[in-house]
């Protein structure tokens, strides 16, 4: 009896146990759990079970408590990536015993897990030399990767810099980021979204994370990123994006209207956070969750596979094997 909800249930469990933010590893762990406990006796059956579980999990991510709708976009991409990864690895195994196949596959997935786990450190080493002493960094929203980067740079590498954080309404993620930066002694200041252009005058660089990097080399990230990017371009400030390579998706938006459904509209989530909330709940609103920043506004992409201009990113994607759409470089076993 095929249980497609196994991975999903395990995922919900792990999300409760683990600290918030690191969902990529949790996703892989849930799928690994299914793989380890599979009762399937044929290759096709195994593949089918993994596919069903991955699909169910990625489609129901929005129902998971503790997971924001935005992160579900990145995880969706990771889920598809995982599926292609498994399919291609499976087709490369010529063993007849399913036990052997299963254990080899588990080993490959654990390689992937290790890769994902180490991607943070690699992004850090890419980006570190761009965080110079004495600069002012403007950050929009709260990407866990950006937080990790700034904290490590200040604490482990003794860099001295100051940060201006934008509020990032309506979720106001900026508050949490400011607090964690202050806690490690970084000079951080909070600013309202409307003051982005004003604050950028003082900033030297802009640093943001990304939910997804799309085919053009542009990014999909929390609402307000596009605004920051446009201001940065006008004011001639470099706009840097940090993101792991498993967030590269096969999407090709041309305009804001082409964003995936899941991030186009907040639907029922509360829109405004203020004392005057009661007055605004009945007004018609335009409430996107994320926006698309085109590649001509992005200066550099810092990833675990190196530093890319949004242009050369497409050369990276080109290393994809025929139909499997998974970056060949990512598939190489790490020595």
């Amino acid at each position, binding site marked *: 009896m095929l249980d497609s909800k196994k991975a999903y249930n395990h995922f919900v469990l792990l999300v409760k146990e683990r600290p918030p933010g690191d969902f990529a590893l949790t996703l892989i762990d849930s799928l690994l759990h299914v793989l380890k406990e599979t009762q399937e006796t044929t290759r096709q059956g195994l593949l089918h079970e993994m596919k069903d579980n991955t699909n169910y999990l990625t489609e129901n991510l929005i129902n998971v408590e503790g997971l924001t709708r935005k992160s579900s976009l990145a995880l969706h991409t990771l889920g598809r990536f995982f599926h292609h990864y498994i399919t291609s690895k499976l087709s490369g195994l010529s063993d007849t015993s399913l036990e052997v196949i299963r254990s080899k596959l588990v080993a490959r997935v654990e390689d992937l897990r290790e890769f994902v786990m180490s991607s943070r450190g690699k992004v850090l080493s890419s980006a570190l030399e761009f965080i110079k002493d004495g600069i002012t960094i403007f950050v929009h929203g709260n990407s866990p990767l950006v937080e990790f980067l700034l904290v490590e740079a200040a604490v482990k590498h003794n860099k001295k810099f100051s940060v201006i954080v934008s509020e990032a309404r309506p979720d106001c993620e900026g508050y949490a980021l400011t607090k964690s930066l202050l806690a490690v002694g970084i000079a951080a200041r909070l600013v309202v979204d409307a003051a982005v252009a004003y604050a950028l005058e003082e900033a030297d660089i802009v640093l943001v994370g990304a939910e997804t990097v799309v*085919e*053009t080399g542009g990014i999909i990230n929390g609402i307000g990123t596009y605004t920051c990017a446009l201001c940065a371009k006008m004011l001639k400030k470099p706009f840097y994006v940090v993101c792991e390579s498993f967030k590269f998706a096969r999407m090709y938006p*041309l305009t804001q209207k082409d964003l995936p459904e899941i991030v186009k509209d907040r639907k029922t989530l509360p829109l405004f956070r203020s004392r005057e909330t009661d007055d605004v709940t009945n007004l018609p609103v335009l409430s996107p969750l994320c926006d698309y920043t085109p590649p001509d506004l992005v200066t550099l992409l810092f990833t675990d596979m190196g530093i890319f201009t949004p*242009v*050369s990113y*497409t*050369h990276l994607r*080109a290393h994809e094997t025929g139909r499997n759409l998974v970056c060949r470089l990512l598939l190489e076993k790490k020595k």
Partner: protein
Amino acid sequence: INAEYMGTIKMSNLISHLEKFEVNFQNKDAPKGMHPDIICLGHKLRNNQITGTNARCFAILITLRKIIEEYRGSPETINKNISVLLDEVRAYLRTARKLGSGVESYLDNLKLSIFNSNRDIGLGLTKKLSDDIGDFIDQKIRKADDLIIKNGLELINDDDVILTFGRSYVVERLLRECKKKFHLIIVDNPPYYEGRQMALRLARQIPITYTCISGVAYFMRKVQKVFLGASSMLSNGALISRVGTAMISCIAHMYRKPVLVFCETYKFSEKTQLDSLSENELADPQALLEPGDKTTAINLRYDLTPRNYINMVITETGLIPPTSIPVMLRELTRIQGTN
């Protein structure tokens, strides 16, 4: 020396490196023994009776295939003879009109395959070449266009306003096959007014606004997408297309409207070019003038649209950014090498 004279000298310097348009082609004798179909083709190309990169490529290859099939020489020296025949035909057609980079690179490959063929292949060579040409037309033009249209149909939404320039075969087919409700703005350009053909063919099923380039800035605000065809696409992501395309793309970029280029992969070239004038084709300057007018006219056929004005290229292999063209070329040569 007056200002007019200086003007003429300056203008000539701009284009003096380009091949002059030969006015007396009609009266020249074709080389002895040239197949009449080729002579006919040469004249048609010359007189703009066949226009458009796809149409010209198709016509050239179909005619070439016919004369290869009609080869009646000795089987012993067939390899050499056909090779020489190919060279003569190419040289003659080039005097009529430049062939186009896609056709040229295919014919180079064809010549290579003759060279690599078995010495004893005999009359089997004609069949081999004929099949090769047939496959190319089938895969790289017909099926490629089907796939491009399949990809392109998803890019049109109801109530869109789409702008197109001149007349591209694949864009016209795409718009004709689209069942959604949209409005089309066709932008046209003297001297050949190719957009009129497109307007005539589509007017029955699509509401059309027809204008010339001078009107584009006015309409661009209302446009959702710009659809363009290609003569070729270069390794630096630049687009070579009908003169005027660069202006349209520039205006579209200014208004932040997406520019989509529909291009088969056989049109991808390894060349790079930075501007429209270093390499171009001159057509009959008289087409721009009233009869009897003695003004110096420059009738350029193509222009170059830089990479950053193009948002997406739709090929039979999928949707790619213009920066991926050299990558695509590498992959295609690799795939071809393994076949």
